[in-house]
C-alpha cells in the first residue's frame, strides 16, 4: 500500500531517486545545495540505497562526473540550486548535446548580487536554452512524482535526454507537506531498468564527445533540436502511464477554472497554488478569471497553451525573474512569442515579482489580476509591471 507521509520537497525528491534505484549520485554539498544530496548520502551510508555517491569539489565537477556515469549506462542523479547551477553551466549543455539521460533536481533560487540564496526563478531561466527537458513543480507531491517520471522519460530509447525538475527553493524545498509515497512494486512497474544502447565498453570501443568542425556542427545541433521536440510524445505518454499506475495525471499546461474565463493568469511553480486561491476568491465575487499553471517548460507546449488561451481577452503572465533590458520576464517573452502569429490572441500583460525570496500572497495575486485588467484596458507606459516593490516604478520603457 502507498503511504501518506510528511516530507519536505527535498526529501521527497531524494525518496524518488532512492525508489528509482539510482546507480550514481554526484553532488557538491555546500550552499546553495539543499537536503536532497544530504538525504541521499545518508541513504547510501546506512544501506537504504546501493549506489555510488561521489562527493566532488564543485558543481562543475558534479555534472561532469554525471556525464561519465551516464556514458557507461548507469542511472544517474544530481541536484543543485541557484549559483550552483550557474557554476555547472558549461556542462549543462554538454549533457544534453551528448544525449545523456541524467536527472537533475533544481531547487530554484535567486542569483547574486546582492548575495541571496532565497527563492526565485533566475537560476532556471539562465538554463532555459540548454536542451534539457524541463518541468516546474507546484508542490512536494509533484517534486516526488516528476523526479520519478523524469527517469522514465529521459531514459526512454526514443528520447535519451537529460531532465531537469524545478521546484521552488525554500517554499517547497524546505517546507513539509503531505506526500503520498507509492509501493516499490508500483515504481518498478512504471520505471523499467535503464538500458543505455551506447554505453562505453572496452570490448566494443567507440568515441563519445568527438570534435565537431563547422561542416558538421550545424547538422548536429538541428538533430538535437528535433530530438528534444520529438520527446514531447514520450513526455505525454509518461504522464499517462504515471496516472494509470499512481492515480495522479499531469498535463503540460494545467488549466485551473479557465472554462469561459475572460482573464487568465499564468504562473509557474509553487506560486501557482497561491494564485489558484486568488482566482477562487475572484470567482466567488463573480469575476471571469482562471489560472494557467505552466508545468512543461521545455519542450515548450505551444499547442496546449494556444488551446487554453483561445477564448480569453486578457492574459497576465507572472515572472519570478527579470530579463534585464528585455521586453519582460523570460516566461512572458516566451508566451508572447508563442501567441504572436495567432489570428485571435489575448492582450498580454507582464508582471515581475517574488524575487529573491519575497513572498507573494493571495492578496498580491488579487492585485495582479485587478491591475492587469486595468493595464489591458487602459494601457501602460511600462513594458512590464512589478508587484510588491516599495516606491513607484517608472522607467521600464522600450
Amino acid at each position, binding site marked *: 500500500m502507498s503511504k501518506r507521509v510528511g516530507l519536505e520537497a527535498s526529501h521527497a525528491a531524494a525518496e524518488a531517486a532512492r525508489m528509482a534505484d539510482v546507480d550514481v549520485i554526484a553532488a557538491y554539498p555546500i550552499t546553495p545545495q539543499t537536503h536532497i544530496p544530504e538525504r541521499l548520502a545518508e541513504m547510501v551510508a546506512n544501506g537504504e540505497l546501493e549506489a555510488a555517491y561521489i562527493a566532488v569539489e564543485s558543481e562543475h565537477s558534479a555534472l561532469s562526473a554525471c556525464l561519465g556515469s551516464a556514458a557507461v549506462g548507469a542511472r544517474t542523479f544530481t541536484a543543485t540550486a541557484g549559483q550552483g547551477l550557474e557554476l555547472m553551466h558549461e556542462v549543462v549543455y554538454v549533457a544534453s548535446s551528448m544525449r545523456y539521460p541524467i536527472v537533475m533536481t533544481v531547487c530554484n533560487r535567486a542569483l547574486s548580487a546582492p548575495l541571496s540564496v532565497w527563492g526565485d526563478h533566475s537560476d532556471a531561466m539562465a538554463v532555459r536554452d540548454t536542451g534539457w527537458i524541463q518541468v516546474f513543480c507546484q508542490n512536494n507531491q509533484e517534486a516526488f512524482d516528476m523526479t520519478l517520471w523524469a527517469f522514465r522519460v529521459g531514459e526512454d530509447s526514443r528520447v535519451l535526454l537529460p531532465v531537469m525538475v524545478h521546484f521552488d527553493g525554500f517554499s517547497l524545498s524546505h517546507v513539509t507537506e503531505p506526500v503520498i509515497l507509492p509501493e516499490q512494486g508500483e515504481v518498478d512497474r512504471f520505471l523499467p531498468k535503464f538500458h543505455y544502447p551506447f554505453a562505453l565498453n572496452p570490448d566494443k570501443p*567507440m568515441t563519445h564527445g568527438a570534435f565537431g568542425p563547422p561542416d558538421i556542427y550545424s547538422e548536429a545541433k538541428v538533430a538535437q533540436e528535433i530530438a528534444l521536440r520529438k520527446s514531447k510524445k514520450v513526455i505525454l505518454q509518461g504522464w499517462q502511464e504515471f496516472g494509470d499506475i499512481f492515480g495522479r495525471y499531469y498535463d503540460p499546461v494545467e488549466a485551473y477554472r479557465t472554462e469561459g474565463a475572460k482573464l487568465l493568469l499564468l504562473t509557474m511553480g509553487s506560486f501557482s497554488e497561491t494564485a489558484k486561491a486568488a482566482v477562487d476568491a475572484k470567482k466567488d465575487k463573480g469575476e471571469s478569471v482562471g489560472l494557467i499553471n505552466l508545468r512543461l517548460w521545455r519542450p515548450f507546449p505551444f499547442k496546449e497553451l494556444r488551446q487554453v488561451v483561445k477564448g480569453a481577452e486578457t492574459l497576465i503572465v507572472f515572472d519570478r525573474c527579470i530579463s534585464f533590458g528585455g521586453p519582460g520576464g523570460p516566461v512572458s517573452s516566451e508566451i508572447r512569442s508563442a501567441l504572436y502569429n495567432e489570428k485571435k490572441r489575448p492582450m498580454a500583460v507582464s508582471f515581475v515579482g517574488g524575487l529573491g525570496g519575497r513572498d507573494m500572497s493571495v492578496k498580491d495575486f488579487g492585485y495582479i489580476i485587478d491591475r492587469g485588467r486595468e493595464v489591458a484596458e487602459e494601457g501602460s507606459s511600462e513594458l512590464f509591471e512589478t508587484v510588491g516593490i516599495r516606491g513607484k516604478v517608472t522607467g521600464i520603457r522600450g
Partner: protein
Amino acid sequence: MAKKKLKTGSDLTWKDMEVGNIVKEAGSASARKTGDWRTERPILDKEKCTKCALCWLYCPDAAIKPTEEGYYEADLDYCKGCGICADICPVEAITMTEEEEQ
C-alpha cells in the same frame, strides 16, 4: 583494421547524425585526413638522420612512419605539425618549415 570509405562531413544530413554524435567505429580517424590544419611541417635531412626512430616513438599522433629505406618520415595526411619530432631528434635532422613556404 579494414578501412571503410567513410562519408565526409559535407555528405551528411542532420538525419545521418548519430545520437549524441557518437562515433561507433573505433579507430575511424585513420579513415579521415586529419592533418589539414597544420601550419608547419617537418622536413627530414637524410644526410643527418641516423634512423634512431626517436621521432617515430615520440610522435603523439602516430603520424611518423618508417620508409622502405629505413628512414622515418611524417605522413602529411595526419601530421599536425606539433614539432615534437624536431625537438626530440638528437642530431637535429628535422626542421619545421612554414606550410605557406611549401
